[in-house]
C-alpha cells in the first residue's frame, strides 16, 4: 500500500477477521501411481494449485558407480542394463563406445550397423512406453495398451537378438558378442510394419483428441534458456526448439551413412514433447530399415586377442586360445590409463560416460551422465503455479527413468 499512515476509518474488509487458511502439503510418492520409478514429490498445494514442488530421489539407488569399480570392464555391461531399463541396449552400446574411445579402438562396420539397429529398436520401445504411459495416466488406457503391444513386439525381437527382454547385456568391447540370428532382419521389418500400424492407433486416440490436447498444450512449459540451464537434452530440449541431437552433431557408429531428420518442437510444453516422441518413432523405423538395407557382411567384433574373447573351438583346442580367454576373464581388458568423456544420444537425451582407467583391468571410475537426472531437476520449475493435475502429464513427458536417475 502506498499510504501507510493511520487511517481512522478502516473499511469493513479490514475489520473482518478473515478465515485463516494454510497450504496443504501432500506427498506424491515414493509409492504413488503417477510417480513411476519411486520418486517422491513433496507438493505444497493452495487448493489445486501447486505452490512449490520438491523432488526427492534416492529410493532406487543401487550403487552403480561403486559396483563398476569392483569388476572388469566387461562385467560392467550387465550393470548398465539396469540404468535405463526400458532401453538397455542404448546403455550397453553407449558404455562400450566410451570404453572403445578410451582404448582408441575402431569397431567393424557390421557391428556399427547392428548397434544402430539395436539402439533405434530400443529408442522406439522407450518412446512407446513414454507416450503410452502418458495416455494411461491421463486416463486413456486403450492408448497405453496399443503402445505396449507394439513395445512387446520389439522386445520379442530384442529377446531373439540378445536372449533377454530387459537385461540385454549385448555387445562387448570391440564389437558384439554375437551376430544377428538368421532371418532376424526380415522379422524386424515385418515387426516394424505392425509397430507403425499400432502407433497409428495410439496417435489416432491421442494426437487430435480434444481432451488430450487441452491437457497437454501449454502445460509443463519450459523455455529454451531454462532448459539449457537445467541441462536438458534429447526430446525435452528439442521440444523447446533447440536443435541438439548427438546423432547429427557428433555422428557415431553408422549414423553419418543414414538419412534421418531431427524432430523439433517449439513451445517446450507437454504436447510438443509428446509429438516429438511420435515423430522420432517414425524416424527410428526409417533408420532401422535403412540400416538393415545397407548393413555389410563381415565380422562383428575386432580380431584382437587382447580385447575380444577367442572363439570357443580355439579356447578348447589351442593353448593360445586358453591363455587369451583366461587372461581376459580373470584380469579383464587392459584399458590404457587415462580418462575419457563420451556421449551418445539415448532415448531421453545425452547419455554421457566419464571413464577413468588406471591401466588395470578394472575401471578406476565410471560416472554416468543420465539424461533423466537433469530433466527431473527441472520439474519443479515446470509445474510451480500450475494445477496438481498438470503434474501428471509433465512427469510423464519428461520420461524420467528411476534406474538411470538414481543409479
Amino acid at each position, binding site marked *: 500500500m502506498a499510504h501507510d499512515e493511520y487511517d481512522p476509518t478502516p473499511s469493513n474488509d479490514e475489520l473482518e477477521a478473515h478465515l485463516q487458511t494454510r497450504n*496443504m502439503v*501432500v506427498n506424491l510418492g515414493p509409492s504413488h*501411481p*503417477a510417480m513411476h520409478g519411486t520418486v517422491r514429490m513433496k507438493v505444497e*498445494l493452495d487448493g*489445486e494449485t501447486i505452490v512449490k514442488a520438491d523432488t526427492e530421489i534416492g529410493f532406487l539407488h543401487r550403487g552403480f558407480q561403486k559396483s563398476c569399480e569392483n569388476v572388469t570392464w566387461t562385467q560392467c555391461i550387465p550393470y548398465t542394463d539396469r540404468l535405463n531399463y526400458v532401453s538397455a541396449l542404448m546403455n550397453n552400446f553407449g558404455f562400450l563406445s566410451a570404453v572403445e574411445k578410451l582404448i582408441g579402438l575402431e569397431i567393424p562396420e557390421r557391428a556399427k550397423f547392428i548397434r544402430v539397429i539395436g539402439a533405434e529398436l530400443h529408442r522406439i520401445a522407450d518412446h512407446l512406453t513414454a507416450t503410452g504411459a502418458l*495416455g*494411461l*495416466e*491421463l*486416463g*486413456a*488406457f*486403450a492408448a497405453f*495398451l*496399443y503402445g505396449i*503391444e507394439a513395445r512387446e513386439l520389439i522386445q520379442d525381437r530384442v529377446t531373439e537378438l540378445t536372449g533377454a527382454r530387459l537385461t540385454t547385456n549385448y555387445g562387448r568391447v570391440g564389437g558384439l558378442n554375437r551376430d544377428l540370428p538368421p532371418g532376424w532382419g526380415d522379422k524386424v521389418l515385418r515387426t516394424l510394419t505392425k509397430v507403425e500400424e499400432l502407433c497409428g492407433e495410439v496417435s489416432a*486416440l*491421442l494426437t*487430435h*483428441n*480434444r*481432451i*488430450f*490436447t*487441452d*491437457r497437454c*498444450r*501449454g502445460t509443463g512449459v519450459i523455455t529454451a534458456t531454462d532448459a539449457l540451464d537445467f541441462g536438458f537434452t534429447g526430446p525435452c530440449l528439442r521440444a523447446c526448439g533447440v536443435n541438439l541431437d548427438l546423432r547429427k552433431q557428433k555422428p557415431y557408429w553408422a549414423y553419418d551413412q543414414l538419412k534421418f531428420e531431427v524432430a523439433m518442437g*517449439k*513451445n517446450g510444453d507437454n*504436447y*510438443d514433447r509428446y*509429438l516429438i516422441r511420435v515423430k522420432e518413432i517414425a524416424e527410428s523405423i526409417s533408420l532401422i530399415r535403412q540400416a538393415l538395407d545397407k548393413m555389410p557382411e563381415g565380422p562383428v567384433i575386432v580380431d584382437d586377442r587382447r580385447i575380444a574373447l577367442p572363439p570357443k573351438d580355439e579356447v578348447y583346442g589351442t593353448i593360445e586360445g586358453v591363455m587369451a580367454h583366461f587372461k581376459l576373464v580373470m584380469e579383464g581388458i587392459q584399458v590404457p590409463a587415462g580418462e575419457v568423456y563420451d556421449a551418445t544420444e539415448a532415448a531421453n537425451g545425452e547419455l554421457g560416460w566419464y571413464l577413468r582407467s588406471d591401466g588395470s583391468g578394472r575401471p578406476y571410475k565410471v560416472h554416468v551422465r543420465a539424461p533423466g537426472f537433469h530433466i527431473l531437476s527441472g520439474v519443479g520449475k515446470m509445474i510451480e503455479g500450475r*494445477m*496438481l*493435475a*498438470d*503434474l*501428471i502429464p509433465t512427469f510423464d513427458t519428461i520420461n524420467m527413468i528411476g534406474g538411470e536417475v538414481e543409479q
Partner: protein
Amino acid sequence: MKMKKWIEVSLAIGFIIGALYGLMAAAYGLSGLLEGLLKDKFGVSGGAGFANLLVLMLGCVMVIATALTLAERKWSAMMQDRIGPNRATIDIGPLKGRALGGVPHIVTDVLKLLTKEDFQPATASKFLFNLGPILAFAPVFALFAIVPVGPTLEVAGQKVGLYVANPDFGLLYMLGIASLAVYGTSLAGWASNNKFALLGGVRASSQMISYEVALGLSLVGMMIAFGTVQLAGPTGMSEMQGHYLWKATVGGLDVGIPAWGFLLQPVGFILFFAAAFAETKRAPFDVPEGESEIIGYFVEYSGMKFGLFMIAEFVEVVVLSGVLTAIFFGGWTLPFGNEALASVGFFQDHPWVLGALFATIFWVKVILLCYLQLAIRWTFPRFRYDQIQTLGWKILLPMGLVNLFVTGALILWDPTLRSLAIAGGLEIALIAAVTLVPRGGAKDEHAEDHGHGGHGAHGATDAAAPALAAHH
C-alpha cells in the same frame, strides 16, 4: 471356428433377450396379482409399484449393474485387443476348466469384497465414514423409480404399468434425488481424514453441483415440448414419444418419423448426456477419482464399503441409460410398427405378451446405451478439474439456455412439434458434418497453429463430450 463363435455369441444374446422377456412377463404378472391382492384384502393400491420395485429395481437394475462389472472388463478388453477376465472357473463336471465368458469373475469379485477386512482409519469420523457409501449408493438407486419400462396394461383385472411410481413432479424427483448423491462422495472424502480423499471429495462436490445446473436446463426443452414433467403414464414423456410426427402406412405396417427426444432435441440430448455423464463421475469426468493423481475420495475404503461406491457407479450407468431411453430414445416404443403390433388380434387378447415385448425393447435400448457409455469411458483421457468447470459453466450452460429459447420459440410457432423436429434434424446434420469432415491439412497442424486459440473449427471430435470441450 469363426462360425462356432458366431453361434455362441448369438445364443448368448438370445438368452439375455429371452431372460429379459421372461422377467418382464413375470413383472406384469406379479404386478397384477399383488395389486389385486392388496386391493381385495386391505383396500389399498400400490401393490404394482411394490412388485415393480422388486422386479425392476432389485431384479433388472441390480443384475444389469452387476453384469456390467464383468461387461466393462470384457468390453474394454475387446476394445483394447486383450482377452479379458478368463481365469476364474467353476470346477464342477462339464464346466471344469471353462472360462464361461468370465462370468465366474462376478462371484469371485463379490466374495473378495465381502471377505476383505473392513479397515477404518483411526482418525476417521466413524459415523460419517460409514454413512458415505450408503449416501452414495441409495440416491442413485432410487432414481430409477420413475422410469417407465413398459406400457400400462390390464393384467388380472388390474391396470398396471411397469414403473415403481409416477408422481406428478416426475423429472423434478429425478433432479432432486440426483443432487443428494453429492453428499455421499463429499462426506466420504471429508470423513476419511486423508488429504487425497479430501481433494477428491472437494472435486466431486464442486463438479456435481456445477453440473446439476446444466443437467436440469437440458431437460427443460423436452418438458415444454411435451408439456409435462412426468415420464410414465399415457401423457408422460415416454409414451408421447411413440406418436408419429409424419406417418405413412406401408402394407399394414406403420412407418414414419416418431417424436423421439433425440430427434426433437439433439442439443438437449448431448447436453444432458454430457452433464449426466459428469454426474456419474466416470472417465472422462473422473477427476474425483483421478486414480493417477489423487487416487480418489474412496482411497481409505476397503471391502464392501468400497464395493458400494463401485457398484453405485455401475448402477448410475444403468439408471442413466434408463433415463436417457425414457426421455430421448422413445422409451419402450419401437421406431416403427407400434400400431401394427398393437392391432394384432392375439396381442389384443393377451396384452401382457405385447407389453413384455415392449419392455424387452426398453432393456435392449438400455444395454446399448450402457455400451455407448463404456465405449466413451474407455476411449477418452480425463479432463482437468478446471476444464470440467469451464465445460460446465461456459459451454453447457449457455448452450442449454440458447437451446431452451430456440425450442420455446419453435413450439410457440408450431405446436405440432414438426418444425422442432426439422430444426433438430438440421442440428444433427450440422453436428455430423462438424464431426465427420476431415481436418484440412491437419497433418502438421501443430507447426502452424500451436498454442491456444485458432482451434474452434476443430472443435468436435468423435463423440459428444469432447465436442463440447472446444472451450478456446
